[in-house]
């Protein structure tokens, strides 16, 4: 499959301040990507550049090999055929749901238009709400209308700007799966922007983690968690702690809990001191284990406890333990490392 969207070496400045620099990524047809980062990292501005609301000062943006943005040329938004779901939905308050969805279809005949509106209402499970006004709908329903309105024009690309941030947590998870199913069913290429990694993992095929206007890693959710490319991603994604270790051979590291296998890392020479990432799911509770750690904090999460444990050296690690193992703070419990290979970073790289 070819690359549908291409962002090549794009940079954007706002009042002499750089929002993002030399940004490059591409997306195949039908893939859902997510730009993940804390607020103010420039991710929304990228969407605005792709939509054509902001110019770029260097680089190119192409869809289906057609140049949309470059420093010399900006195709205006209304000619791009890009759909967008805004964070606050931006539904037209004076138009009914049906008219909102039909809004972008003004060049079609009335019957053709109605057919698409019906199809869209069916798709987002709002059949029968055509004559209702946006303010009469719940937040989740409004969000689905916004999605239907954006999809109705059969866009080449769908942009979603923090689409779930106005919804409560439970609804957020359910809707993100629903939206993914809808997009997949229509083979829609889409980019989502969010600061919530659970949302990103639930919906996206590929995730770009952003920091200060740069993409620091572009990968699948699984790889981001298990093979973070740098210390920033390791910190940003998931929970975990770092234990000091010493490289003993090209694929082994000694840490307080024993010698663990590691991927070869060209930076790490034998004898180097490194920081080893330990995820809570790497530490298994085992009463028979000779290795003991003291519970210093515990957070009950229903099905499991997240224990913060202190090793003999004073180093802290996290462990997820099924919740019938109810231990008190101060108690010593047996633990065991269960891990295929660890991720390690040189000490200096923070």
């Amino acid at each position: 499959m070819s690359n549908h969207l291409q962002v090549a070496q794009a940079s954007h400045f706002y009042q002499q301040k750089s929002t993002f620099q030399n940004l490059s990524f591409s997306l195949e047809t039908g893939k859902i990507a997510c730009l993940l980062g804390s607020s103010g990292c420039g991710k929304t501005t990228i969407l605005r550049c792709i939509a054509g609301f902001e110019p770029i000062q260097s680089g190119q943006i192409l869809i289906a090999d057609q140049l949309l943005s470059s420093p010399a040329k900006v195709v205006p938004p209304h000619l791009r055929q890009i759909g967008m779901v805004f964070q606050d939905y931006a539904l037209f308050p004076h138009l009914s749901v049906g008219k909102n969805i039909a809004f972008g279809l003004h060049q079609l005949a009335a019957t053709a238009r109605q057919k698409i509106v019906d199809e869209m209402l069916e798709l987002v499970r709002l059949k029968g709400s055509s004559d209702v006004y946006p303010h009469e709908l719940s937040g989740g329903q409004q969000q689905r209308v916004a999605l239907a309105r954006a999809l109705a024009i059969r866009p080449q690309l769908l942009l979603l700007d923090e689409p779930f941030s106005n919804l409560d947590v439970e609804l957020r998870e359910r809707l993100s799966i629903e939206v993914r199913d809808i997009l997949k069913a229509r083979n829609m290429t889409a980019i989502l922007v969010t600061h919530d990694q659970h949302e990103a993992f639930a919906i996206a095929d590929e995730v770009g983690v952003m920091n200060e206007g740069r993409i620091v890693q572009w990968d699948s959710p699984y790889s981001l968690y298990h093979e973070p490319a740098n210390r920033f991603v390791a910190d940003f994604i998931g929970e975990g702690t770092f234990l000091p270790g010493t490289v003993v051979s090209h694929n082994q590291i000694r840490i307080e809990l024993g010698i663990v296998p590691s991927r070869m890392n060209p930076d790490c020479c034998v004898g180097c001191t490194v920081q080893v990432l330990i995820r809570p799911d790497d530490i298994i509770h085992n009463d028979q284990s000779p290795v003991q750690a003291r519970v210093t904090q515990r957070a009950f999460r229903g099905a499991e406890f997240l224990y913060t444990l202190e090793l003999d050296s004073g180093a802290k690690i996290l462990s997820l333990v099924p919740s019938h193992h109810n231990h008190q703070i101060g108690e010593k419990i047996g633990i065991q490392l269960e891990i295929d290979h660890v991720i390690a970073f040189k000490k200096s790289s923070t």
Partner: protein
Amino acid sequence: MHLSRLLILSLLIGLITLLPIGVVMSYLIYPESAIWQHLWAYVLPEIISNTAILLLGTGVVSAALGIALAWLTACHEFPLRRFFNWALILPLAMPAYVTAFVDIGLFDFTGPVQTFIRHHFGEGIWFPPIRSTPGVIMVMSLSLYPYVYLLCRNAFLSQGARITEAGQLLGLTRNKAFWRLALPMARPWIVGGVIVVLMETLADFGTMSVFNFDTFTTAIYKSWFGLFSLSAAAQLASLLVIVVFGLLIAEQYFAGRKRYHTPLKNMSPRFTLHGRTKWLALIFCSSILLFAFILPLLQLIYWSAQVFTQDFDERYPQFIWHTVLLASVSAGLVVAAALCLALTARTYPNRWFKAWGRLATLGYAVPGSVLAVGIFIPVAAADTYLINFFNAQFGWQGHSSFLRGTLFIMLLALMVRFMAPGFNSIETGLQRITKNQEDAAKGMGLFGWQLLRRIHLPLLKTSLFSAALLVFVDTMKEMPITLMTRPFGWDTLAVRVFEMTSEGQWDRAALPALGIVLVGLLPVFLLSRHQEN
């Protein structure tokens, strides 16, 4: 404060508002046919058509100005935008009757502009006549457009840019997105602003008398003080009240529609204008501001400087004293009454007291000339009754009146007229005090008067101040009530403006007008600062 006492006060305040409206309306139900015939034959045909044309023209022109300026400053970036953003509300400080006489002084046949043209380019060059219906409409629109501008800008600020972007992604150009989305979306705010403009236009007395343009307000004044027929004045007033009720109903309907619009949380950046459009925007905003505010102000200063030495005599300290006294007492009355109403609505949060609060503040929609008539009639009747009673019972002689010829009638009418601005600003302040804060204080043993003194009043300080300031300035600018109900010879700055303009002495009217405008700038600055935040 004892709760039931608060309640009785509120009921009383509401009744005072309803009294003049009821009195005037009774003239609809029990018309005097001789007067009716006279009015229908000689007065009504002209003033009805004048009023209709005036409302239509002022409504359309001020809506166009307000919408265009709001769209520019709320959703676009161009040179001096931040300045225009607040400066465009400055005309609110300039009463329409001031703009009116300044414009006539400047642009009439004998004025400096036409004289200059004749002198340099010869006779016979056509110049649009300022004393004309379009002239009145221009003056009214230039001083009233800020009401549309303010409301409309709020609508555009909260959703204009974002809605336009959503429309662009669905295939509209920016221009089309304005006509098809931003404008219809802002309709409730636009209509709300236009209705305020229409109410002010209906209520206007000063401008109409400067232009000699006969409408209901001037007809009421002439019937009363020209023909000495109070009942003819009251009958005209009753017709005017019907028009006002129509506007009120429309206002209620459109105010209700606003709640369907939830303001969007994230604003899109303003669209930067480039090249020629950038300069066109600058020129448009500047010329409106020039004609609506800067030019009139400069001319006032020029005239005032010219006449100051000969005109500023011993009568002026008295004008100023009367003005300040009247404005302060009316501000005090309104603040006290509005606080009562607002506290009642808060203490008894039910439909009835909410409705009562709205009724008690209806005066903003009722023209001052109507209120003057509506309060004068019952108070004069009560006065006559009291005099007769005391004369008969105690054999008093020499008193012809108790209440007539005092400030009583005037203050009552002013209080009714300006209750709304005072009430709104106090109510907004009260809403900022949460129920939980109140409950926390109650938990510490405060109640009743203690609670009011230690929690509400300190937290309401700024709201009370801005309420008082608004009413103070409104009273200063007010013309018909002061003119019609003041004790004989009891003149204020506004009355002085009226007297000088009715003699066509524009330069001598400028001095008191300048005073009114300068004090009037205070609440406008306050409002613009509030808008910035």
